[in-house]
Structures are given as C-alpha cells and as structure tokens.
C-alpha cells in the first residue's frame, strides 16, 4: 500500500505526470478572473473567497480522471484487482495520492494567489484551514466519480457531470467559512460541517468506489 502511494506520487512527479496540473489550473483560473471581471480591487476583494474555492474545486475536478483511467488503460488496474491488497485500500491510497499531488499544493499556494485577488487580511488563515479540511473530501468524492466512469472511453464529461453536484456542499461550507472569516465573523459552524463531510466521505466512499471498480472491470 505504501508502495502504491509511492508509485503514484513518483509517477505524477515525472515529466508530464500531472503533478502541478491542479496547481497550474488553479493559477490559471485566478489569473484569468481579473482579466475577465476587470481590475477593480473592491470587486475582486468581494469575490475572492468564492473564486479561490471555485478555482481549487475546478483544479481537483480536472485531474480526477487520472486517478484510475491511466491504470485502467495500461492494464494495471486488472493486476491491482488481483493483487493481495483489498481494492478498498487501493482506492483510498489513490485518493490520498491525488490529494497529496493536488489538494495539498493547492492549499499551500492559495495564500499567494489570494494576494492577487486582494483577499482581506483576516481571511488568509481561514482560507488555508478550510482548504486543508475540505480538499480531502474533494479527492475522495472525485475518486468515487472516477471509479464509476473508469471503463468508459473518454468518461471525462460524464465524470464532471456526476461529481459536480456532489461537490456542492463542500464548496458552500468551504467558501462560506472563508467569507465569514474575512469579515471577522464566526467560522466554527461551517468549518465543523466541512470537517464532518470530509470524515464521512473518507470513511464511507472507498467502499462504494471499490464496488464500482469491480463492476467496471468485469
């Protein structure tokens, strides 16, 4: 299992391995938005928490299909399914690898990009905290969506469509806590809800995802 995590990480760090794909996308979104909405800094300040969270979410969404598709195509998934580790653990490890290569860098990069969007000073801490709590849920939910669509040729569209509504609660709690934090309001409730969401998905979704993969492999 550690081997699997290590492999996934080193694969994604190799040339063109997708490490930084999420990060790059996050960067792209936050850079493009000011070009689109115009450079007025109070408008930007107003929408910064939302845009940052939406950017992080899109960055996750975008890199989801790599979780299983590549292993499916080259036959590794067949081999992993017959290997001595349970498929649930494989799913969990792959979600973890996805988080380490996507969610974690996003969280670390977010404060820098927040400067570009003129986020209020009070919001920075909450931004990092909420991303840290919320991105694992994004990875896990995404892994579930990826498992549902793994057999399909170019399931990318379907994957986004399936995962989008599942992401809504995470996004709302996440962005809300940053917005409240930036305005100096209490953030406990949304953060607690966010943490609960993450825990629940990490605890339950690997089973659903493993079941979906088994169906897709047969």
């Amino acid at each position, binding site marked *: 299992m*550690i*081997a*699997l995590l290590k*492999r996934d990480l*080193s*694969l994604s760090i*190799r*040339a*063109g*391995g997708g490490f930084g794909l999420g990060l790059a996308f996050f960067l792209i979104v936050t850079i493009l938005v000011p070009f689109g909405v115009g450079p007025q800094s109070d408008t930007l300040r107003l929408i910064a928490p939302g845009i940052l969270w939406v950017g992080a979410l899109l960055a996750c969404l975008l890199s989801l299909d790599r979780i299983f598709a590549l*292993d499916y*195509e*080259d*036959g*590794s998934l*067949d*081999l*992993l*399914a*017959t*290997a*001595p*580790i349970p498929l649930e653990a494989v799913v969990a490890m792959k979600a973890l690898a996805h988080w380490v290569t996507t969610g974690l860098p996003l969280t670390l990069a977010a404060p820098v990009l927040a400067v570009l969007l003129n986020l209020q000073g009070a919001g920075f801490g909450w931004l990092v905290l909420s991303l840290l709590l919320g991105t694992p849920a994004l990875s896990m939910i995404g892994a579930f969506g990826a498992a549902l669509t793994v057999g399909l040729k170019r399931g990318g569209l379907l994957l986004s469509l399936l995962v989008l509504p599942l992401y809504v609660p995470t996004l709302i709690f996440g962005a809300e806590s940053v917005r409240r934090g930036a305005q100096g309001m209490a953030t406990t409730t949304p953060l607690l809800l966010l943490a609960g969401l993450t825990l629940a998905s990490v605890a339950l979704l690997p089973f659903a995802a493993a079941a979906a993969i088994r169906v897709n*492999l*047969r």
Partner: protein
Amino acid sequence: MELVVNNLSCARGGVPVLERVGFRLTAGQALMLRGPNGIGKTTLLRTLAGLQPALEGQISSPPESIAYAAHADGLKATLSVAENLLFWARIFDTNDITPALEGFDLVDLAGRQAQNLSAGQKRRLGLARLLVTGRPIWMLDEPTVSLDTASVALFGRAVAAHLKTGGAAVIATHIDLGFSAQSLDLTPFRAAPQKLNDFDEAFL
C-alpha cells in the same frame, strides 16, 4: 496446489461465449488454451483470474494463487524497468527483482524508461512481472506476442523453471511455444445460443 474448473460458463459484454468448460491442473502442469480469434480465451482467463464472475460452474483454487498477464502489460511509461518491477514486487510482498531481471534478460535495460523500449522489450518486462508476484498459478494471454526467437526460448525456460518448482500455468496462444504441454481447444465449448421462449428469459 490445484486448479479445478468445473462446468464453467462465462460471458463477455453480457453475451455468453463459453459453456461447460472443465479441466484440472496440478502442480507442475501447464495447459495451452487454443482456439480461433474471438472464441473466448481472454474471457476465460479473466474469469479464472477472478476479474469477472462466472455465469455458472465452479473454479476452485487456493486463495491468492493466481497471477494474470493480459494483452496489456500494465507498465508505466515513465518509470524505469527496475522501478516497474520493484513496484509489483512490493505489492506482492516479494523483495528481490534480480531473478526477474535476469530471467528475462533485462539487466542491461534496468535503468531505461519503459516508454523507450521496443515492443518486444516491453513484453519481456511484462512477463518478468510474473516472477515477482511469487504466485504459483500463471494465467498468460498470448505471452509471446512481439517476442523474437531468443526471447521465446527465454520465456520457455522461465515457464519450465516455474513448473519445476511446483507452479502451474494456463497459456492462451496461437503459435507454437516450443515446449510440450497438454492443450485444450476451446472450439467445442462455444456457447450455444440459448432458447428464449418467453419473457422470463429476456435477460441473458
């Protein structure tokens, strides 16, 4: 260590392709699956490997005893030959990849990325993976595709050594592999179209 297959039917894409296949394989034996394209060799191997459920019939084998090598090799293009092997070795809890590298003449290529291998070299690497699984029953789907004569001989020797140490192998192939084994032609087991009399049987 024994693989017993009894009255097995299997389906591909929801369509039954083989029916009532039965055989028995004990330690030290190899079985060649033969039959024309599309008869269902791949399907049978996948069923035996536990990747898809059987429609009917029993497969009995010791738990976690089967190593499967498909048409696709499961190689990661950006990992080196040694890294690819090492990964599978870790997954299967064996730690030494030298016998595998040596057995398939990959020592010189060990540091090369898998994407820079020729077709035959890739295949050799795919086969070397079997040695690091440490599992007794090999299921091989056309293992010698793209291999030159020397490599086919290498493969023959690897299988022979595996059988000698109490392993077994089921090999789907169209060509002559140069070593003797019992062979099973799948043509007679082709699934007959089912009778569909009323809606009770609407769902194949």
